């Protein structure tokens, strides 16, 4: 099912949770809504589910396979929604939870008892909880509850699966396992899935497409690669990982001719920022006049971890973070207090006033 959202605005009181949003979700894709808390991602998800209503008068539309569903209630939209804290029915067994969506159907559309039983058990098999049918939700671990919630949402055979922070409340280890599992499940199900997350790693690892949101607006839509390597805005770049920020001044129209100093008094009216990721900085111990280099001094070395993390201080006293591999670190034999030269491999320049 393709979902197309156009010109949707949603406000709570005076603040706009969503500000004139338009976005399409391709059928069969797994899309991540990524952003900091309060950026509107959950609101967007709930709007798709029919749990929230767009501002009357915003003129927006939500279209499922060519049909405007804006006026339809959540039950009518046949959307599988997995709540952040699962919202399992505490007084029902796992079986009854999963069967609920089938049992509340009108008599004419309700499957027979045997069919319901068969469906529930096959779903339990799918979420790998085959022997848990008679447990109460309180007797399950977090990861198991998450999977029951998923099975319950899938029971009504939705063509759209929506997940609100599906791994938010889980331990780090369970989380990575479930991530991979969710990806496999999505591939098996062939439905359009959207999940909300504030964890960029999760979004990049699991999703086909990522939508980065900030303050009720969409910052960028793209594949994980595009988002990571070609961030459309400074916000996206900052949100997707650690960055070093240098302030400078663009003096001509040629964006290559940028003078970057640090802000301490040397630059009059800096009008641009240069963003470099810690792993996009090469280290050399000798200066190379052919390249644009940043001279710096090593102040701290942290070798524990998959890569080596260096804190360096540039001539303006600003701390620059650098990440290099253990191989390079060993080859260069770096030490604290050493003078080094940093060469950016990849950088992004944003004019001030530009987002």
């Amino acid at each position, binding site marked *: 099912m393709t979902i197309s959202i156009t010109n949707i605005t949603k406000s*709570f009181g005076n603040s706009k949770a969503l500000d004139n949003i338009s976005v399409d979700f391709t059928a069969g894709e797994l899309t991540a809504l990524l952003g900091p808390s309060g950026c509107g991602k959950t609101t967007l998800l709930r709007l798709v589910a*029919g*749990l*929230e*209503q767009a*501002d*009357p*008068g915003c003129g927006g539309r939500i279209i499922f396979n060519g049909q405007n569903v804006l006026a339809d*209630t*959540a039950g009518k939209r046949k959307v599988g929604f997995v709540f952040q804290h699962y919202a399992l029915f505490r007084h029902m067994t796992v079986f009854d939870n999963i069967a609920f969506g089938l049992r509340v159907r009108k008599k004419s559309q309700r499957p027979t008892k045997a069919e319901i039983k068969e469906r529930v058990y096959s779903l339990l098999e799918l979420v790998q909880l085959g022997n848990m049918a008679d447990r109460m939700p309180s007797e399950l671990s977090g990861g198991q509850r998450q999977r029951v919630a998923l099975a319950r949402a899938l029971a009504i055979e939705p063509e759209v699966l929506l997940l609100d922070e599906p791994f938010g409340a889980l331990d780090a280890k369970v989380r990575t396992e479930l991530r991979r599992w969710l990806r496999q499940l999505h591939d098996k199900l062939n439905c359009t899935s959207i999940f909300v997350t504030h964890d960029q790693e999760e979004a990049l690892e699991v999703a086909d497409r990522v939508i980065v949101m900030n303050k009720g607006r969409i910052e960028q839509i793209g594949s994980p690669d595009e988002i990571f390597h070609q961030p459309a805005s400074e916000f996206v770049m900052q949100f997707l990982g650690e960055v070093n920020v240098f302030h400078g001044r663009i003096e001509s129209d040629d964006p290559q001719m940028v003078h970057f100093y640090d802000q301490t008094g040397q630059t009059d009216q800096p009008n641009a920022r240069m963003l470099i990721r810690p792993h996009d900085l090469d280290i050399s111990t000798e200066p190379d006049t052919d390249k644009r280099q940043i001279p710096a001094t090593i102040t701290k070395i942290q070798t524990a971890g998959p890569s080596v993390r260096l804190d360096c201080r540039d001539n303006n006293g600003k701390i620059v973070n650098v990440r290099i591999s253990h191989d390079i670190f060993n080859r260069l034999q770096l030490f604290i207090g050493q003078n080094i030269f940093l060469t950016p491999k990849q950088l992004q320049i944003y004019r001030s006033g530009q987002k």
Partner: protein
Amino acid sequence: MKYQFKQYNILPGFGLTLGYTVVYLGLLVLLPLAALTLSALQMTWPEFWSAISSQRAIRSFALTFGTSFIAAVINTIFGLLIAWCLSRMSFPGRKIIDAMIDLPFALPTAISGIALTAVYAPNGILGEPLARLGIKVAYTPIGIIIAMILVGLPFVVRTVQPVLAELERELEEAALGLGASNWQTFSKVIFPLVLPSLLTGFTLAFARNLGEYGSVVFIAGNMPMKTEITSLLIVTHLEQYDYAGATALASAMLIISFVLLLTINLLQTWSGRRLK
């Protein structure tokens, strides 16, 4: 559209339930209150004033507010003590006693009144020894206070108890670890945190005592000017079909209790806000 009556909510039934609630409240509460207002407005000011400023009325106000206040203070002190014992100590029978605290909620007030009178009457099980000591309880203001202590007690205990139970024990350990004595820990750490709920409990007990009737009328003796509470004076007016007099007293009573409760509520909001 800037102004919204209600935020959108997917749950159904808002119109039905709100409509029913408003109609029910309107018929059962607003209509009768309107009657009181109308009745009060029909009186002239001198009429109203003479009804509430008669010697008998003033004495009844003084008696009602005085005894209610004293009883609420006693309730607050012993309520804190009982809540402390129930939430912090274990002793045989604690659970039964915990359940018994609500007895005054469940026992019809008239029944507590009759029972208290039997206990404290001059020939009663406690009344007799007290009378020998020269203390007369039944048919005096002391009796009224005792009846009010009974009905007001659960309000304090039930407001303070959950707060005491949920107080982080780490706070106390921190205080003790910093060298505070037991008493300092209680008075400087626990008490200030419990104070807002204690004030709430006091307010609730005081309000309840002001309006108490059933348990008081039996033990009070109901002598005009001496042991006649305002509620009883209102009944007397009603029995003589003096609706104007009853209206004046009732509105005065309502206004005074309302102002009092508002003051105490503000005080309590203020002390509660400082803790946040």
